[in-house]
């Protein structure tokens, strides 16, 4: 600190960071008069809490603005630009949206993707709910270990997991090999890979943990006394599940289903790798080819905007339903939405 700095700028011991520097300075053999280690502007900033707050909040806000809001705005703007002779012209038009809704391909692809996503969601739910139930109520020892066993695949690269299904379902794959070894078939079965079903199987595999996490989180949060109270009031185990456990777990079910539906509907890697003629074209693949192959950015942007609107509507709706069904009472719990539930699921013991 220089001798010219105002007296009010002395480091305050209440701030841990400043206490450290103060200790360091006191310990210096040069004494307090020669404290020149820090630049002036730092002291200037520290003395002004408003500017400190602005810097603190400014960084994340700026991050989101530059990396999320601006791209969305560009995307939105592009969807209204015109493509003339393969060149992008900055002239506003509704042509892209007209083409999007006028050509059967685009709505059909969106519907087809939604159909795939719906099937993935249903099967993932049927797999995840019983598993979450077992984990939450029946597994007493090694519960964390078992939970981790479900979650750990999420750390494996998505591509690896998608490719794994190529290895399993391929013509010379593990499944065919097994069937031949068991003399169930003579020739390799070819309908396994490159089909709608391969895509669905891979997506189920990839997104079931996402469905499980929020369901496990809500099930685990149900106080054991509620189940005991139900049984105490003459409800059998099935009635207890039907009238107490199931209704209380519905927010988690909605959150889990939202995850698997939204994520698998927007997926383009699994259909690209495993899809057949009928299914290599989910809506995201369409967007990829519009941007990359056809170089039709405006139309690609228009499809993306429609998908964004659909997704946000879905998330908003899911959030509404979750909030309405969340009876637990405390304000913190009531705000626990899809994302919050997953966080809680991962962190809870």
């Amino acid at each position, binding site marked *: 600190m220089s001798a010219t700095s105002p007296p009010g700028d002395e480091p305050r011991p209440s701030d841990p960071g400043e206490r450290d520097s103060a200790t360091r300075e006191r310990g210096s053999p040069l004494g307090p008069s020669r404290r020149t280690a820090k630049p002036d502007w730092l002291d200037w900033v520290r003395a002004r809490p408003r500017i400190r707050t602005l810097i603190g909040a400014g960084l994340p806000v700026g991050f989101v603005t530059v990396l999320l809001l601006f791209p969305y705005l560009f995307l939105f703007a592009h969807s209204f630009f015109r493509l003339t002779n393969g060149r992008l012209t900055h002239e506003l038009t509704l042509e892209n949206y007209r083409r999007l809704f006028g050509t059967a391909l685009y709505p059909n692809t969106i519907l087809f993707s939604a159909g795939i996503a719906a099937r993935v969601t249903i099967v993932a739910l049927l797999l995840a709910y019983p598993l979450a139930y077992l984990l939450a109520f029946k597994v007493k020892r090694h519960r964390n270990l078992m939970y981790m066993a479900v979650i750990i695949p999420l750390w494996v690269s998505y591509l690896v997991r998608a490719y794994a299904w190529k290895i399993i379902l391929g013509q010379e794959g593990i499944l065919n090999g097994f069937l031949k070894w068991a003399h169930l078939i003579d020739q390799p079965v070819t309908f396994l890979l490159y089909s709608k079903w391969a895509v669905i199987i891979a997506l189920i595999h990839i997104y079931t943990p996402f469905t499980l996490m929020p369901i496990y989180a809500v099930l685990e949060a149900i*106080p054991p*006394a*509620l189940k*005991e*109270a*139900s*049984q*105490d*009031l*003459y*409800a*059998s185990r099935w*009635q207890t599940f039907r*009238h*107490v456990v199931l*209704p*209380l777990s519905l927010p988690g079910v909605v959150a889990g289903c939202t995850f698997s539906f939204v994520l698998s509907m927007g997926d383009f890697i699994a259909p690209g790798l495993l899809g057949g003629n009928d299914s290599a074209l989910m809506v995201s693949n369409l967007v990829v080819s519009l941007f990359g192959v056809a170089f039709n950015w405006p139309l690609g942007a228009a499809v993306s905007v429609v998908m964004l609107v659909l997704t946000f509507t879905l998330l908003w709706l899911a959030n509404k339903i979750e909030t309405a*069904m969340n*009876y*637990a*009472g*405390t304000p913190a719990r009531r705000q626990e939405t899809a994302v919050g539930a997953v966080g809680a699921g991962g962190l809870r013991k």
Partner: protein
Amino acid sequence: MRPPPPTPHTPQPLAPSHTISSILQLQHLIKRFDAFTAVDDLSLDIAAGEFLTFLGASGSGKTTTLRMIAGFERPTSGEILMEGTSITPLPPFKRDINTVFQSYALFPHMSVRDNVGYGLRMRGVPKAEIGKRVEEALQMVQLGHLGERAPRQLSGGQQQRVALARALVNRPRVLLLDEPLGALDLKLRKEMQLELKQLNKLLGITFIYVTHDQEEALTMSDRIALMRNGRIEQLSGPREMYEEPVSRYVADFIGETNLLQTTAARRLGGSAARLTIAGREFEASATPSWVEGKPAWLAVRPEHVRPASADGPGSLPVTVVDAVFTGVITRVHTTIDGGGHLVLHWPAERLAPEAGATLMVTWPTERGRCVGD
């Protein structure tokens, strides 16, 4: 409080011999969790209509015993009989017993009315009757106007009443209460204690109550089973437990007690003992917990100790440490010349002594009890 709905079970008077009308019999119940024995060979007959309290410190096995009666825990060995028939293997939903939980355990996704009607719905009682009985039960706990509320919109005391109504609406033979008043403030707790006692007498339902609060147990119970290390240390009425503790543990647990260390103890004829405290001899009634040759304490309540007019037999010299005025009484803390502390309630009509004053104290011989560990 309004009169309760008529019950199919008419209230039965407490039978003099509880073998005849005992509603529950616990026979040699043992419950082990791995290496820990929570309940250790507990046998008890519970009379129909009585208010029985399991009192004890945490870990004494009182809640485990209650959970075995409810059916939430299977005893490691032993039998539970209800009116002579074993209910040991039955799950909770097949027992004619309802529970008021410590945490109330109200269903958060149901209205108060649906909470109270839950048991009746599960038993398939006709809708019209459910509606009627739920209303009656809510009236009984003075919550008739809150039926549509969600549990979280109620205060702790109101939730407690809903939990009570939810159990009582089923007209069980036995009601289990697991520290139901623990979360309430003192004033509300006192009110509820009296209300619970009235309900017990009015409805004729057997109440089995668990608490660690000795005052609560004394206030409400017909009988108290004081639990220690999974066993019943003493089973008796509140007055007997207070005035005639069978052991040092009971004397210490119930109310305020002076436990004076003895240097020698000798059994006289009958149930009397002669104890030596600070070089002076005192007579006291011997309890079964003391065996001649083992350490003995003289247990005497502060309200029975009085200043003595003169040094004489049965009096003890003490030095005043402090005199604390607590409103109703003045509590005088003293040290015994020769070691140990003694507290007495100072007579209201006399001026409290100063700290440092020496005086003689005495107590009626029959109030002193010789207890063992």
